[in-house]
């Protein structure tokens, strides 16, 4: 797989993007996680999240200017979450972890901090924790002098004392009442005592030769460096005094501390920094499903939220996630994460040389239906990812043979002598158009194919040829590009022999494959060709009650076909119920051969679709219709009535019979006569088992014929049944049977792919 493509795919998935509450917080507090802990009633864990981003939790929980709340999406459905009030609840109700201690290894470098406000003391706290010797200079008599302007009931002295206590525990040295600058110690001489100096001097002009004539100093907005290599600055001096933003000052201190640490270690200040400060959020969240809710108001506003009130407030958080595709797709839901992770897992799986390929099944369980791309804000298509992975697996010889063998053998059958055909209309030597009904409608309803072909011959002048065969979809879905191309070459040659007529196709999957195979050819749907002329045989077949239209996933982007079918149904007087419309339709579980690789996911997919509406369904894909029927949903095809799913064996028989019947009735030719097949009888339960185990009646016949011819079989003394096996291909089939009349009754069937040989035997 191409790693640049992989990176582009990963970038398309926004689920890992941070929500607005975090990207609108200068300190990038993980609000979603904090609120999540509160929702669970775990205030201690919530406080730990808070303290990780905010070194002064008691103070900030009281006075934060909380720009986060302005970005809270809940604000579009009621009031924004009262994040700052929840922070206060965490501080008051959570158990603080042990105070921060300096790390064991002390550093030799000394750092000076000028100004004991939020930015300066954040620098002091962060660098002291890293083991630096830190000295804080403050002109006023106390740290946090500016915070005295807050009323004590909002910011009680105890809160300030608590946070300062933690700072003392870090061993920071304070020199309050010491003025740096013009009226005290010059900056240049202060700088001589330290390896680096941080200035958090507040909004007012600061007079010192290192500052300009207006008393300002230029600061890099990312690194917080100044023109002087050992001098850093931030806080309200940088961003201006009004309005004062405590959280911005604190964040400045944090980013400056990072720079100072890097500077002391001789590392680049600017390289590889995480996103800093306020940025727009790329996370998409659909909030249409959320009813507006007002904020929880504390019973006693002075005391803030009680635990119960805080939990109730936190429960209003959605929380913000995208997951648009995951919510709609059983496959994406099944693996418990989201596309960005899946892309990575599939890519890593692709790169494994020695070891277990843990994502083989994942890459092959997607139905390639395109719903994720239709829902994704950035149009990421997991089907594209999975298909590329499959082609790569096939290319490396790493595709598990058991995944697609059965479906590819079915494709071989359809492209083979038993079914394939390419003819002009009987009696004609040219074709204005050629009808390609596809293998699945032929398998499901051969008489509907005959009816549609008769209608086309009657209504289209210039001759309508007939092509039977396979469009190549199974090969494409299985990642077998070589087989797809070989099929396409044969297909193209047949089409050219017919004079390159326009294609009329009855299956939307065939239509997509033919568009790929014959980019120069014209392909129209049977439904468009029928126009307003009605549907052959349909008026009798379609029920008169309202029907819900299921658009096949391969018609998702094919608006003309969707419209043609709706016009046809309207012409027939069918009252149509829309499910989610064509663009948001879902797979029936067959697409991408997912049902062969992951029956559990395919089953969930179809159950979900069936559950979408109580009405009977009408569709125009034979596979969709048969999948619905197999799961007990009454469903009709535009061309034929409700009926049971024929099952794999009958599908092949029906195709062969269709060809033989058309040859006999239209071209007056007979297929070479074959011996009548061995008569085998299976109870419905055994037949269902055989279907699930992907064992065809023909496989069963082959085993019995082989056993009866060679005598290679076992006899069960208890039941008298015969048990025999045969390996006609890369699968060994086992059948337990007994003679019954002129044929056999089959009791059990099973298979394995391993080869078995007795030691020392020829």
């Amino acid at each position: 797989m191409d790693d640049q493509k992989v990176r582009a795919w990963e970038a398309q998935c926004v689920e890992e993007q941070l929500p607005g509450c975090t990207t609108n917080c200068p300190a990038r507090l993980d609000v979603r996680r904090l609120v999540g802990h509160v929702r669970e009633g775990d205030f201690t864990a919530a406080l730990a999240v808070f303290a990780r981003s905010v070194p002064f939790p008691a103070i900030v929980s009281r006075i934060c200017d909380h720009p986060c709340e302005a970005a809270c999406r809940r604000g579009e459905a009621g009031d924004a979450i009262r994040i700052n009030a929840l922070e206060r609840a965490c501080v008051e109700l959570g158990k603080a972890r042990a105070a921060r201690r300096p790390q064991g290894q002390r550093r030799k470098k000394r750092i000076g901090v000028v100004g004991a406000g939020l930015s300066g003391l954040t620098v002091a706290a962060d660098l002291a924790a890293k083991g630096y010797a830190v000295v804080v200079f403050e002109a006023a008599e106390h740290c946090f002098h500016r915070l005295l302007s807050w009323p004590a009931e909002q910011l009680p002295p105890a809160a300030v004392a608590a946070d300062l206590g933690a700072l003392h525990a870090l061993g920071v040295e304070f020199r309050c009442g010491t003025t740096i600058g013009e009226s005290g110690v010059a900056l240049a001489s202060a700088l001589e005592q330290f390896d680096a100096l941080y200035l958090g001097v507040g909004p007012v002009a600061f007079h010192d030769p290192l500052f300009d004539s207006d008393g300002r100093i230029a600061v890099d907005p990312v690194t917080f460096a100044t023109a002087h290599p050992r001098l850093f600055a931030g806080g309200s001096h940088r961003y201006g005094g009004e309005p004062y933003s405590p959280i911005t000052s604190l964040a400045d201190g944090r980013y400056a501390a990072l720079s100072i640490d890097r500077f002391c270690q001789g590392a680049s200040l600017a390289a590889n920094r995480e996103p800093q400060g306020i940025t727009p959020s790329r996370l998409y969240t659909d909030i249409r499903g959320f009813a507006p809710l007002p904020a929880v108001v504390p019973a006693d506003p002075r005391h803030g939220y009680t635990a119960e009130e805080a939990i109730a407030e936190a429960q209003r958080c959605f929380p913000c996630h995208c997951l648009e595709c995951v919510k709609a797709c059983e496959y994406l839901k099944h693996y418990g994460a989201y596309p960005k992770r899946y892309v990575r897992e599939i890519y890593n799986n692709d790169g494994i040389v020695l070891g277990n390929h843990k994502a083989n099944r994942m890459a092959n369980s997607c139905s390639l239906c395109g719903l994720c791309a239709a829902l994704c804000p950035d149009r990421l298509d997991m089907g594209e990812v999975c298909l590329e992975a499959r082609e790569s697996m096939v290319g490396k010889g790493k595709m598990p043979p058991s995944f697609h063998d059965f479906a590819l053998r079915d494709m071989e059958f359809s492209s083979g002598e038993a079914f394939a055909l390419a003819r002009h209309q009987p009696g004609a030597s040219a074709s204005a158009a050629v009808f390609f009904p596809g293998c699945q409608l032929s398998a499901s309803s051969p008489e509907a194919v005959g009816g549609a072909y008769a209608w086309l011959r009657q209504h289209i002048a210039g001759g309508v040829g007939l092509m039977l065969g396979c469009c190549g979809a199974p090969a494409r879905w299985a990642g077998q590009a070589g087989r797809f191309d070989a099929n396409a070459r044969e297909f193209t040659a047949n089409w050219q022999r017919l004079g390159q007529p326009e294609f009329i196709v009855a299956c939307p999957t065939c239509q997509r494959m033919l568009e790929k195979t014959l980019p120069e050819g014209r392909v129209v749907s049977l439904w468009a060709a029928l126009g307003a002329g009605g549907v052959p045989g349909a008026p009798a077949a379609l029920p008169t009650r309202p029907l819900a239209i299921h658009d096949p996933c391969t018609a998702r982007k094919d608006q003309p076909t969707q419209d043609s079918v709706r016009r046809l149904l309207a012409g027939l007087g069918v009252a149509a119920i829309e499910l989610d419309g064509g663009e948001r339709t879902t797979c029936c579980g067959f697409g991408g051969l997912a049902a062969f690789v992951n029956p559990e996911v395919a089953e969930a997919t179809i159950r979900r679709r069936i559950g979408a509406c109580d009405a009977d369904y009408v569709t125009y894909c034979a596979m969709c219709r048969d999948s619905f029927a197999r799961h007990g949903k009454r469903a009709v095809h535009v061309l034929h009535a409700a009926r049971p799913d024929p099952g794999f064996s009958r599908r092949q028989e029906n195709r062969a019979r269709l060809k033989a019947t058309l040859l006999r009735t239209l071209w007056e030719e007979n297929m070479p006569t074959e011996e009548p097949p061995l008569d085998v009888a299976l109870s419905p339960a055994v037949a269902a088992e055989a279907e699930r185990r992907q064992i065809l009646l023909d496989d069963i016949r082959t085993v019995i014929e082989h056993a009866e011819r060679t005598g290679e079989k076992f006899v069960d003394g208890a039941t008298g049944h015969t048990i025999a096996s045969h390996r006609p291909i890369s699968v060994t089939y086992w059948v337990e049977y007994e003679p019954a009349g002129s044929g056999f009754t089959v009791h059990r069937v099973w298979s394995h792919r391993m080869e078995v040989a007795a030691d020392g035997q020829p």
Partner: protein
Amino acid sequence: MNSQPTAKPAPELVCGKCNRKLEIGKVTVSYLGNRFPVELPRCPACGLVYVPEDLALGKMLQVEQALEDK
């Protein structure tokens, strides 16, 4: 797969050709280029091997899938 007996003898089964009761014997199973010795019921005369349904769909399937993911 290990070389422990993976299936009980099937005393009721008799080889259709040799009319002999099956006995547990050494057998080689192989898949995707990997070979394992196992013990399975087989005809003591002609060596025809019996793979019971529960083995084929249980342990054997697990090993097939594990090898496919190698």
